């Protein structure tokens, strides 16, 4: 219950931050397939707050690159039918790079999130008095860091497709950390406010 509360509070904080930031007039919404180790299915939604944009010109080749530093709050979840399911509240900080007049872009980013892992099925828990109790929902919370690389294409000003791979690590997991991968495939579209 504590973990669920934390998730809900964090969601409200994110929503508040987005609502109060007047300079972000157009917020892209992203919706994606979110596959734990690619094949265990999930869904992720998010948005992207532009923090800074700038251009970089390569003089010799006369190439102008657009760069955008952004912060992306996200909410996701996935199901591993044989083992567990999870909810993730996550933020990524990245730099999107695209060449002038070209629609393709790539984005390396770093993420930090809070993942609540739900055990599949009933959890039988040993009590201090030696008895066993059963819980229908049993969760464990982990901080999770991610290293991400995204490529995509802006089809129109308001519509983009993308795919992203992530190397993720749950921290303080067993006596160290875990290593997992995620694959995302999704779209981004802008909502005018």
């Amino acid at each position: 219950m504590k973990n669920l509360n934390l998730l809900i509070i964090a969601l409200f904080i994110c929503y508040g931050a987005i609502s109060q930031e007047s300079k972000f007039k157009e917020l892209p919404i992203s919706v994606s397939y979110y596959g734990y180790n690619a094949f265990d299915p999930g869904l992720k939604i998010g948005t992207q707050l532009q923090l800074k944009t700038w251009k970089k010109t390569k003089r010799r080749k006369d190439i102008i690159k657009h760069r955008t530093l952004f912060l992306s709050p996200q909410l996701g979840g996935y199901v591993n039918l044989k083992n567990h399911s999870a909810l993730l509240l996550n933020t990524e900080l990245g730099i999107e790079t695209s060449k002038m007049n070209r629609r393709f872009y790539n984005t390396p980013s770093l993420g930090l999130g809070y993942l609540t892992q739900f055990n599949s099925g009933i959890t039988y828990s040993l009590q201090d008095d030696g008895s066993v109790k059963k819980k229908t929902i049993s969760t464990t919370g982990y901080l999770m860091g991610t290293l991400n690389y995204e490529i995509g294409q802006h089809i129109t000003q308001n519509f983009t497709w993308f795919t992203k791979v992530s190397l993720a690590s749950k921290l303080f997991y067993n006596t160290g950390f875990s290593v997992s991968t995620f694959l995302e495939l999704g779209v981004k579209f802008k909502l005018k406010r």
Partner: protein
Amino acid sequence: MVLISSCKKEEALSSDMEEQFYIKNGNVNMPVWIDGNGTSKTFIITVHGGPILGSGNDFYNATFAEEMEEKYVMVYWDQRHTANSHGHLKNEDLTVDAFISDIRLLVQTLKLKYGDDISLFLMGHSWGGMLATNYLLKESYQGDFKGWINIAGTPDAPQELIESAKLLLTISEEEISKGNKVTEWQDLVNTVSEIDTNNIDKVAEKTLADQENVMFDLLGDQRYPEQYRYKGASTLFSPADDLLLFSNLIHSGSLEFLEVVNKIDVVDDLYKITIPTLIQFGKYDSGTSPVIGQILYDNIGAPEKFFDVYQHSDHFCFTQEPDLFLNNTINFIETYK
């Protein structure tokens, strides 16, 4: 979140059971998979190898498992700090007693779910066999089981490396006497003979491991048919997760615990084990030599005990000679269930 106190209602046993649940001991969550014929009321608790690098998948994906599931209920689980087990652990949470406590919890849970009248067998491989031995020596825990099956699990870890060197020499001499690849086998003998078996250090340990691979290469298909070579459990469509399996290895707690395991010697207590016992070792297992199996057989107190040495296997007789393994195991269970 719903918390329900100990449930008295037992769950139905069907001929085609497939269930999953977790057991939780302190901060440790361990997944359990149940597969098989519940009408038999006979449950085989598998205890996988390792420690740390192992998973319930090792048995779950083994070729013999499917036939076992037709007759009995197979119970697969990931031990603490392995595969999909998870939680916030400290290094001091990795002790043999903690692993024993986990098996105890699993036994309690199975009885709670399926009733006190189910027949339980314990089947441990390698570290799992060693852990099962330690479990059965604890208090009156062996009373819960109708029998146990030890597959290449040692009661005396320090003796393993000494017997490993001896086995390499024995096999080499056997092959030399047959006139097979004499020069190569003699090279192996020369290398292993240089090891001081009274003081096996890390370098000697590495030499033994290397020479074991040399032995396997020289034996070729004589050891066991190619199709039975153990290639590791396939995890793509199974509950295990390879990345998690390996990432557990690099944790600080893992190395400390391995040091503890390498010193376990319970030979003097084996007389306390009195339940029917089936011991199964591979002739070419230089990691856990059949001589170790003989020590186990000679010292346990069980009046009904059996010792099989598989003539074409090394450490994984249950995958390398699955038909014979299945036959021996089913005969044992049918006799004592």
